[in-house]
């Protein structure tokens, strides 16, 4: 079957491309079944696949949950992909796809789609906007649940109308038939969800996800000013913030992500179902938001900002859900960097197995994940902050406070040198004594030097302007000679008098 062949090849890509990183992570601290219970919707299989790829010990368990969950749904493509992934990972029993079910389901999907399309045509003939809108929504939802049409290899042009893209566009087509702000809000919510799904799907296949994150971000922005009544907007804002944060995180804009996460109202946790979707389960739980926001803030905010806005702000209610995150932040703010980093490291595996945090921060198989990048930033910030209280620190003591990850003997030195060269750390390295020296600030003399420089600049600029004015006034501009376009002026200059 052609369809299966293509699905298999994408699954292969998914596995092979990620093979250098697969099986590197130890099992997380959570129990996978309970954890899986926190989520539902189309994103759950992707979450589980992410775990299976990165954590060999949990591969069987997570895939079996994923496959059985998928089989309850309608997405045959996803089912095939997961089975393929299972056999790639050496789980042959799970990898054996139920072709009979797949064939039947696919037939059913196609029938359903044509039925819905027929209905929509009928609505369109009747010209009832509300019915057309609902017809479009039904088709879009169906496309989302079934994973959309397969890409047609013979005709590469409609490639962007295949898969979840088809669902995204179908939701977008509802716009013309929306009559109230509530309709728009409902559509925008679906667009956000689909865009995030597209992004995750793209990331797992190691293609660029930035466009999808950007459209999620744009839709999240729209959701905040959609024009519905106050009491409705209260329900939408938390989702808009959380989605925007996830999108910013996916794009690698950590400080922006931190800002949006911190602005997320805690109502997110108790939101329940909004417009037919429970985002806490389908997108990210409040616990996830606590982790995302906490990590991003820790990586980008100063100590004072952390105290004021994170621990002291309204985000604290989120942090109460994840006490270790809160602990890590308070350890950082009380300058216990070593303990802070140790806490973070303890949960490294958990967070790397998260589908958004563990995604590669840039496309490419060997790219660092967002967790790696965030950890690296937190580490650099800690080192900088640690050094700010000393005028001299020996490399050896630095290495005990911040044990370098690679085991090479010059690892600490290289890290520090990199930080100095990138301008993050204002210090000098004494290679002989093996100490790091903070430069002494000579405020007075540097102010003098500054003033001198400014004055010189003023003088130079004035002289240059005076020159221009004088030359123009005396009519001594460089003339345009007729014969050879200005070049013979040199000869004239040398010719003298």
């Amino acid at each position, binding site marked *: 079957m052609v369809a299966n062949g293509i699905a298999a090849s994408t699954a292969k890509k998914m596995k092979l491309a990620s093979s250098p990183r697969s099986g590197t992570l130890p099992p997380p601290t959570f129990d996978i079944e309970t954890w899986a219970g926190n989520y539902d919707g189309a994103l759950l299989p992707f979450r589980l696949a992410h775990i299976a790829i990165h954590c060999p010990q949990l591969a069987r368990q997570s895939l079996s949950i994923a496959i059985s969950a998928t089989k309850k749904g309608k997405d045959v493509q996803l089912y095939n992909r997961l089975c393929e992934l299972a056999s790639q990972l050496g789980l042959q029993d799970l990898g054996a796809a139920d072709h009979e079910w797949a064939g039947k389901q696919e037939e059913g999907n196609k029938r359903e789609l044509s039925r819905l399309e027929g209905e929509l045509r009928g609505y369109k003939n009747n010209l009832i906007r509300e019915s057309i809108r609902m017809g479009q929504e039904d088709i879009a939802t169906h496309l989302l649940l079934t994973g959309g049409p397969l890409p047609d290899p013979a005709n590469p042009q409609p490639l962007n109308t295949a898969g979840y893209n088809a669902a995204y566009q179908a939701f977008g087509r509802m716009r013309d038939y929306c009559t109230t702000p509530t309709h728009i809000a409902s559509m925008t919510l679906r667009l956000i969800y689909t865009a995030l799904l597209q992004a995750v799907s793209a990331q797992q296949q190691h293609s660029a996800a930035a466009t999808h994150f950007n459209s999620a971000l744009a839709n999240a922005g729209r959701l905040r000013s959609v024009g519905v009544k106050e009491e409705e907007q209260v329900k939408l804002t938390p989702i808009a913030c959380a989605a925007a944060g996830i999108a910013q995180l996916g794009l690698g804009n950590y400080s922006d992500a931190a800002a949006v996460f911190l602005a997320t109202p805690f109502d997110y946790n108790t939101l329940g179902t909004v417009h037919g979707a429970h985002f806490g389960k389908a997108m990210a739980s409040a616990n996830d938001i606590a982790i995302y926001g906490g990590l991003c803030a820790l990586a980008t905010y100063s100590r004072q900002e952390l105290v004021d806005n994170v621990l002291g702000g309204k985000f604290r209610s989120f942090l109460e859900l994840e006490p270790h995150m809160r602990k890590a932040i308070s350890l950082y703010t009380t300058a216990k960097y070593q303990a802070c980093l140790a806490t973070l490291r303890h949960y490294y595996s958990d967070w790397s197995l998260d589908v958004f945090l563990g995604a590669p921060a840039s496309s490419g198989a060997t790219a660092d994940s967002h967790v790696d990048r965030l950890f690296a930033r937190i580490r650099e910030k800690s080192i900088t902050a640690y050094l700010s209280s000393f005028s001299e620190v020996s490399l050896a003591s630095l290495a005990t406070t911040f044990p370098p990850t690679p085991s090479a003997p010059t690892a600490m030195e290289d890290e520090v*040198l990199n930080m*100095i*060269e990138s301008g993050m750390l204002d210090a*000098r*390295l*004494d*290679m*002989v*004594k093996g*100490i790091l*020296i903070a*430069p*002494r600030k*000579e405020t*007075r*003399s540097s*102010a*003098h*030097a500054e*003033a*001198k420089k400014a*004055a*010189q600049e*003023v*003088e*130079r600029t*004035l*002289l*240059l*302007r*005076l*020159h*221009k*004015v*004088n*030359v*123009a*006034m*005396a009519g*001594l*501009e*460089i*003339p*345009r*000679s007729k014969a050879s*376009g*200005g*070049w013979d*002026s*040199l000869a*004239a*200059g040398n010719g003298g*008098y």
Partner: protein
Amino acid sequence: MAAETLLSFPPDDVATLSPKKYDDLMTKYLKSLDKLAKTWTVSIGKKNILDLLSPEVNSIPYLLALNDQIKTAGKSIDETHLTLAASFLTTFDPVQVRYVGEDFRELVCFVLECAPQAGADYLVAVTTGLLRLDPTAGTFTSMHLLLVRACLQASMPSLALPILDKDIYAYPAESQKNVPEDLLSEDLELSNSFITAKSAFSHKLKSDFILEYYLHGAQVYIGLRNYDRARLFLEYILLTPTIQHATSMLQVEAYQKWAMVGLLAQGKTFPLPRTLDSSVTKSIRAVGKPYDALAESFERRNWRKYQAEMEVGTQQWHGDGNFRLVQEAASALLRYRVIDLQKTYAALPVGRVATHLEFTSDETLTLLSEMIRSGLLNASITPAQNNTTADAVLRFHFTAPTTVSSTAGGNLELELQTQRIESLVSSIRDADRRLQLSKEYVEYQKRQKRSGPDAADLADQMDLSYDNPIEMGGDEDIMAG
């Protein structure tokens, strides 16, 4: 009779004469000189007239006679004429000479023609003469250019410095119609009041003269490693206004040198002046590509690439006369690579510096000691205990020894700077005034008036307010803090 006329000026009470009276007397005197028979310039009675007159008191007749005698002598000029001319240049009365600009210029030209062979003393005499005439040396004349040329020809460029160090603030101008002229005899603040197109102190200027003057000047400063001043001179050339985006070859040469000076002075090219005509920039850059390539390798601190670029373009550098400059920049590149290290390191073994430079330890040690000795690097080298070069330690010092004196010295320097800018502002005010007297400005004002009072753009006016930072008392606050 002749002697009487000649000595009729200055009168005994010259010091008390009002400028107006002085001017009247002088005009009369010059007329009476014209009326005299042509022969007076050679001798009166049996004596050479030059022995009768004092160059200090009777500057005008002395100058005329000397010029005439030199002319008559033709080819057979001897040392005595030169000596007389030189002594005249160091002693003449500057106010009298203002009335005989052309003759003064002739004499200067004569001395400068002979000077390259005759020796440094005569060049010094000319600079003294120019500065006696105009202590600011701020009005450009062809004598400026001739002097710099002669100094370069005599391979004594530093002799031109007293003139080069003065900033040019005006060019001799035609007198404006309907504007009363200043009296030449007045005590004038700015020399462009008496060095005008009419006074003929200068040949008729062409833009090339100005460009050439600044280019020679820049070369002198580059030779002396005064890169700030060299940069200023080169930017003068680059920023000289052009008609319809014409570009002079001299501007191209200036650009090439300017790029190299930037590398030498601060390790990267200077930012292009913002007011530079963009199409001129384009045509200059099109010709200056090889230099941009050099600059790029330099800025990346890529020594090998720079070396390679340098070898490939050898012919070009020679052709442009910039080979030495390019070579100089090559060694500067090595220095900057070492200097860059002190942003990262406080101390490190020479062996590591060597690896960084891709040199042997011994070569590196030589380079480092050379740099430290010449004051380019504020560091010290401690030999290793086992006496191997690679283990010797290079230690950068951060408390520069200059900072100790910088509180007193820095203040003084800032004050000098302030004075310079203030005097500059007065010459700018003058330029502004002249600009306002020009026909073009009047027409511009007319048009402005027609288009309404709001149309005047404040941004077009030159900002002349310069806050004196020293008088603001902020300094004491720093002390208290």
